[in-house]
């Protein structure tokens, strides 16, 4: 049973081609297993890369959406993560650096009947492709963007990235990097993204949970996935993964639940006098003061304040869904305008070629 609502079916020669394929290949297959999602291509990430874990999680999770493989398209840019489409038995395009959201926009806007996914990395999405990312988010085109954040440039062998912490010593910054990093969740919320979530590569359950909500969301969903690069930035997320420190520094986000975290729920999130949020000790505040997480707030400033709790060394990192609000999607509105135009004026090619002012030369 599908849980994802796809848009209006295609028309014309596109619909004819789909119908013809169904006739020769059999009905669209929507009952699938993880192995159905794999391709015959050898996966070529470094052994131990966090990308393997994410690939397995996605391959296991996607069949549960009940969408036929041929109705899914994965578009990627350039970088380690962007090899992802080659390993998924769907339609796919491994495009050029940073442009995947723009390519996916053209595809999603003209084919609302497809489930469109973008796989990108911190360099691809936030550096060279930063412009496309924010504009895609503000338009709310129907697609799901998986941003693998390993806080380093892997494919070019270890330069700092736009999410690397200040002072990062890399091949290109022997004395430490100078630029302040982006927080991808804050950036997305600043662009008024309608769905923003964050998950950890190694947390299969948490990752799957966020991915499901992202896939079901109508509009652009951005999921930041913390991903370990064991070659150039190993252990970047250990603070959050470690069984001892992890619970101390991650804030699990659950819609409708008070924001309490840490061993024995010792810490919590409360309103700050300045209008933002702050961390408090649970036993020092009144239970009513503890913020109850609500992903549906229209005003993105709450989710933004939540995203600002974490420091660049990852202490107090909220994990889960920050925001999930309903807004009309770009592709649906575009289709509506086309329908409206068709209703008000028929498509008469001769009429537009002729125009308003003509004259006739007789023989």
């Amino acid at each position, binding site marked *: 049973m599908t849980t994802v609502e796809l848009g209006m079916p*295609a*028309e*014309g*020669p*596109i619909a*004819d*081609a789909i119908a*013809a*394929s169904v006739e*020769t*290949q059999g009905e669209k*297959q929507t009952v699938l297993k993880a192995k159905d999602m794999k391709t015959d*291509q050898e996966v070529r990430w470094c052994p131990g890369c966090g990308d393997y874990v994410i690939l397995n999680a996605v391959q296991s999770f996607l069949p549960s959406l009940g969408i*036929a493989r*041929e109705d899914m*398209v994965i578009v990627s840019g*350039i970088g380690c993560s962007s090899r992802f*489409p*080659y390993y*998924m*038995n*769907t339609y*796919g*395009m*491994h*495009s*050029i650096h940073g*442009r995947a959201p*723009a*390519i996916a*926009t*053209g*595809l*999603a*806007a*003209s*084919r609302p*009947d*497809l489930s469109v996914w973008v796989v990108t990395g911190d360099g691809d999405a936030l550096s060279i492709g930063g412009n*496309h990312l924010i*504009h895609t988010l503000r338009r709310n085109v129907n697609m799901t963007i998986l941003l693998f954040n390993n806080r380093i440039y892997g494919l070019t062998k270890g330069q700092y990235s736009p999410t690397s912490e200040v002072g990062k010593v890399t091949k290109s910054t022997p004395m430490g990097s100078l630029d302040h990093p982006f927080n991808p969740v804050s950036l997305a919320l600043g662009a008024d993204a309608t769905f923003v979530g964050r998950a950890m590569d190694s947390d299969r359950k948490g990752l799957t949970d966020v991915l499901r909500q992202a896939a079901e969301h109508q509009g652009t969903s951005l999921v930041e996935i913390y991903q370990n690069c064991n070659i150039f930035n190993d252990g970047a997320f250990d603070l959050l993964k470690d069984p001892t420190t992890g619970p101390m520094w991650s804030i699990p986000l659950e819609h409708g639940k008070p924001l309490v975290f840490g061993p024995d729920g010792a810490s919590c999130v409360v309103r700050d006098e300045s209008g933002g949020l702050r961390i408090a000790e649970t036993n020092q505040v009144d239970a009513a003061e503890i913020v109850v997480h609500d992903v549906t707030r229209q005003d993105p400033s709450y989710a933004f304040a939540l995203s600002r709790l974490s420091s660049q060394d990852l202490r107090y990192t909220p994990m889960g869904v920050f925001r999930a609000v309903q807004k009309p999607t770009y592709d649906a509105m*575009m289709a509506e*305008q*086309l329908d*409206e*135009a*068709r209703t008000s*004026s*028929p*498509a008469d*090619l*001769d009429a*537009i*070629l*002729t125009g308003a*002012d003509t*004259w*006739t*030369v007789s*023989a």
Partner: protein
Amino acid sequence: MTATNTPVTAPAATSAPGGLVKSVVELDRVVIRLAGDSGDGMQLTGNRFTSETASFGNDLSTLPNFPAEIRAPTGTLPGVSSFQLHFADHDIMTPGDAPDVLVAMNPAALKSNLSDLPGGGLLIVDADEFTPRNLAKVGYATNPLEDGSLEGWQTVAVPLTSMTLDALADSGLGKKEAERSKNMFTLGLLSWMYHRPTEGTIRFLERTFRRKPQVAAANIAAFRAGYNYGETTEAFAVSYEVKPAPMAPGRYRNISGNQALALGLVAAGQRSGLPLFLGAYPITPASDILHELSRHKSFGVRTFQAEDEIAGVASAIGASFGGALGVTTTSGPGISLKSEAIGLAVMTELPLLVIDVQRGGPSTGLPTKTEQSDLLQAMFGRNGEAPLPVIAPRSPGDCFDAALEAARIALTYRTPVMLLSDGYLANGAEPWAIPDVESLPDLRVEFATEPNGEDGEFLPYLRDPETLARPWAIPGTAGMQHRIGGLEKADKTGNISYDPANHDLMTRLRQAKVDGIAATLPPTEVEDPDGDARVAVIGWGSTYGPIGAACRRIRRSGRSVAQLHLRHLNPMPADLGDILRGYDRVICPEMNLGQLALLLRAKYLVDVQSHTQVRGLPFRAAELAAVIQDVIDSTSGAPLAADPTGGAE
């Protein structure tokens, strides 16, 4: 008056209201230039006069010329905007080398245009604007209307502004607002002078200002006042008649290059049955294509105003992957930004139309002026061996056919196609024979719907043996899932391949696919009515008109010359090398520094003589004729007399 517009008949006396005796002179052609401040509405006035002229049945050609600034400071030289219209009782090819009539709405317009008006030409100025302040703004120490410096021309100083205000005294409009109608007063005067039909302009004003009836009424009143002024004033004793031009039977309209291109794209969508998707970022002089296409949503046309040039082309590639006819429109700077993505379309072998409305460069260059300097960028401006077909329209109306041809190639060969228009074609206009929809090419495509491999698998890079095109299998098609991308593809399977022999093979296959298009092109047309030309002139794009007009002059002087004009710049027609080698001399005029000449010399080892100009304006036919004549005379040895008609078209 020059020999070019000698009266065809002797002046006939007519009687105008008020007992004034006015004569009518019949001319075979006229070139009018309207020049004024950017805020004076010269482009609108020119377009209206053009529409009147088109519906009257003259052949015509226009040259709008305006600054990049929307409103440069009022009354300054950089703020001058002009519109030149050439209309005739016979078939013409250019907007005219020089005006016969110059209308200057202020001192700045006079100063920047007067040098183009030949001696004896008619000069009409708005006397009200020649104030000490306006004169000082453009550096006139004395008033040229009074100091005798305009004696070489037939100067008529008309108080256009104050007469407009008088005419609108009861309109209820304020002075500033009423003054804005002076362009319509001027249009009315010109409409009288050249016997233009007026109903179209009145209908246009009613339509344009339908929500502001007071403004509509004022403009119509000013227009009529200008017309009546012409009829009654003693300042103009003569009016002129230019008879309709003989044209092939059919329905006609006036059309600009950008309009024709946009309609060609809509037609390509309709004839292929595919949804048209335009991804574009606003840029001069291409934006009008985006504007026009955004009005045709009922044809399933999706227009996406992207965040930047790269997103414009990228979204079109995404749409093409999904089975749409993806298009991106831009000008030279945009092509620079799109280059990497165009390379992706070359690699993924998806249909894509890339429209470059060229302008003066490099960098921001001359945004509103014309040039042909992106040819080499179109040919080679990508990393790696990235061949793609390049085509160019030759006239505003031809942009329609060029768009359909670009779509045919893109869809048949699964390749990005570059279409090179330019600022002159984009904004220039001409009469256009409205085509019969059923006669337009059939562009239907077949999507791949079944596996094509021996083992029941789908091979996305298994090529059609004839066209070398790969199958186009679109998402949603069952059993055909595949991945494409910018990494080198293995032959047939399309999987990633770094194999040396495979890369060599694929590089050659991509080239062979584009080269193979040449075999499907019709034989090159050579225009040589005398059949004994030893000198050929070859051009491409918007130079067709000026080259053609120059060749006509040459032939009238008793000389022979052959004209060839390329629609397909890559690949070039298969017979071109042999044709060029058959002439003693080949001249190639271009609005760049010799880009086509470079290609022809490299490809065919023919000693092509380049003649170039980059003034942001089209060639003048007379200048080209002089160049061609010199080459012919130095080839044949015996100089003949010059064109006895002095350059009629």
